[in-house]
């Protein structure tokens, strides 16, 4: 190591200009995305979802083409609807992995001392991270959709695919991703520990809301306040025998109701979640201090 500072190295002559929030948003997004794409978390989740998809199709191949067709009522849309019923789970896990610690990392590790001292608005930082988390989550979801589409084409033929509703399902998946990440970011803004944020996001979005949905259905109440209920529209849009609700008898004068969100209802629920939780995340992030 040399001891002298080279002449001119201490001061810069590089031109510097005012930078817009949009340009900073792009910088933050690219930086965060670059980091995400290299993490074992992303590669592991991508590999896991691919493995589950391959195993699912392998079991169907083992059962045989005819048996799979019969099981899916001879309809590619039924096949896709059943296959994509798990897309919500992958979105929830991915949202927890990439959103559950997106903000808490600034207050529990030294990342905040690197990024929060820059002349960037916290809302811009949050937006950039949110965009990056959306991209990686959608990459995983898109791969799952491709596996589902591949299976549907193999078992039922390319001509049977209902492209319109498949596209609609994908659009709903994007909205579900945005709203699930909104919840995850909000949880991340509350918790200080990154692992707590990830765990609580999974508990809230998957265990908590699914349990709430089950309890409400037993009480014959439509679980319209549950995000995961609204996310069911991803698969429901491909179900040609879609029913908004079905009553199941439990005994004499007793029954419970199984509800399924329609597309419009699902979109409204997801939009409401995003509209509430994203501003709340921003507010909490602005208020948070680096006290550690």
């Amino acid at each position: 190591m040399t001891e002298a500072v080279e002449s001119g190295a201490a001061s810069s002559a590089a031109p510097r200009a005012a930078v817009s929030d949009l340009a900073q948003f792009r910088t933050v997004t690219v930086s965060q995305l670059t980091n995400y794409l290299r993490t074992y978390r992303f590669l592991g989740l991508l590999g896991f979802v691919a493995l589950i998809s391959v195993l699912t199709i392998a079991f169907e191949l083992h059962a045989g083409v005819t048996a799979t067709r019969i099981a899916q009522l001879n309809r590619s849309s039924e096949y896709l609807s059943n296959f994509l019923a798990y897309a919500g789970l992958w979105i929830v896990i991915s949202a927890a992995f990439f959103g559950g610690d997106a903000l808490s990392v600034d207050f529990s590790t030294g990342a905040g001392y690197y990024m929060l001292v820059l002349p960037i608005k916290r809302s811009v930082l949050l937006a950039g991270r949110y965009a990056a988390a959306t991209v990686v989550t959608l990459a995983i979801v898109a791969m799952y959709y491709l596996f589902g589409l591949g299976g549907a084409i193999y078992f039922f033929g390319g001509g049977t695919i209902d492209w319109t509703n498949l596209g609609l399902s994908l659009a709903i998946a994007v909205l579900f991703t945005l709203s699930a990440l909104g919840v995850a970011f909000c949880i991340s803004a509350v918790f200080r520990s990154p692992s707590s944020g990830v765990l609580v996001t999974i508990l809230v979005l998957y265990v908590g809301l699914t349990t709430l949905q089950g309890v409400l259905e037993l009480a014959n109440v439509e679980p319209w306040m549950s995000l995961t209920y609204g996310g069911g529209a991803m698969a429901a849009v491909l179900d040609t025998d879609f029913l908004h609700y079905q009553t199941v008898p439990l005994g004499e004068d007793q029954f419970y109701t199984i509800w399924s969100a329609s597309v419009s209802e699902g979109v409204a629920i997801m939009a409401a979640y995003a509209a509430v939780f994203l501003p709340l995340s921003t507010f909490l992030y602005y208020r948070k201090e680096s006290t550690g």
Partner: protein
Amino acid sequence: MSDVTVEALHLSKSFGHGPPALDDVSFELSGTGAIGYLGPNGAGKTTTLKLLVGLLRPTRGEVRINGHSPTADRKRALWEIGALVETPEPYPMLTVYDALATVGLARGLRRESVDAEIDRCHRALELPPFGRRVGALSKGQRQRVSLAAALMADPKVLLLDEPTSGLDPAERVLVRRLLVELKRDHLVLMSSHQMFEVGDICDELMFLDRGRLLVRDRVDRIAERVQNREVDVEFSEPVDAARMEPIRQLGATLRPLSDRRWRIAFAGVDGGRPGVLVACQRVAPVVQFANTFLVVEEAYLELIGRST
């Protein structure tokens, strides 16, 4: 030349119900030069720096950087601020280049200027290989990358919290020399526990204890205040006790540090220092005659001791 003004106005910060971490601290920084921010652990140095960059909100008072609040208007307030607070950690999966480019672009550098700017930081700080991931760097390498991030795009004000912490001796020298060069046309506020380093770099000192600002003054005035009466002298050749006898006769107490170096505690006030130097030069050629380390350290001990 820095035209940035950093103002702390009656700044207080409390955490919970305990005594305030910072209690009614006010100062104004402007122009160029280096200011040492000194105090024992828990005095409130890092809290002050966090308040200055908006990582904390003051309980009372406010921070203004060129009139802008770093919490309410952080983009404008921090535009000319490069900060190294606590132990920054860039995202571990980013390369050194990615981590610095992110900062450069966020600070308004054009894409084509980023490489030149990273190269400048590399020349100043001998950064690790640009393609290496941050997560794979040693503590000292990460500290140098974080310091480079504070320098990216050449902000006029540098707020540095123990900038040489975690560095090896060679790296410390490198950073020290860089800061000496930077203070010519930048404003540097640095906290440190390395008194020699502070004495070497800073023109002005601020002493903080238990959240209160005790003293702010120029190093030479603080030297007068503590009436330092010890100097270390280094001769160009070995000098034994017999040759030092004329200095002893001045009333000084001598302690050999090596065959060429002596520590001289002289009688009288600070004004006796020139007489000691003249006497030493009669003994043998003097290579070094230094007391800065002792001034800062003694001032620190005297002020902090006085306040406890």
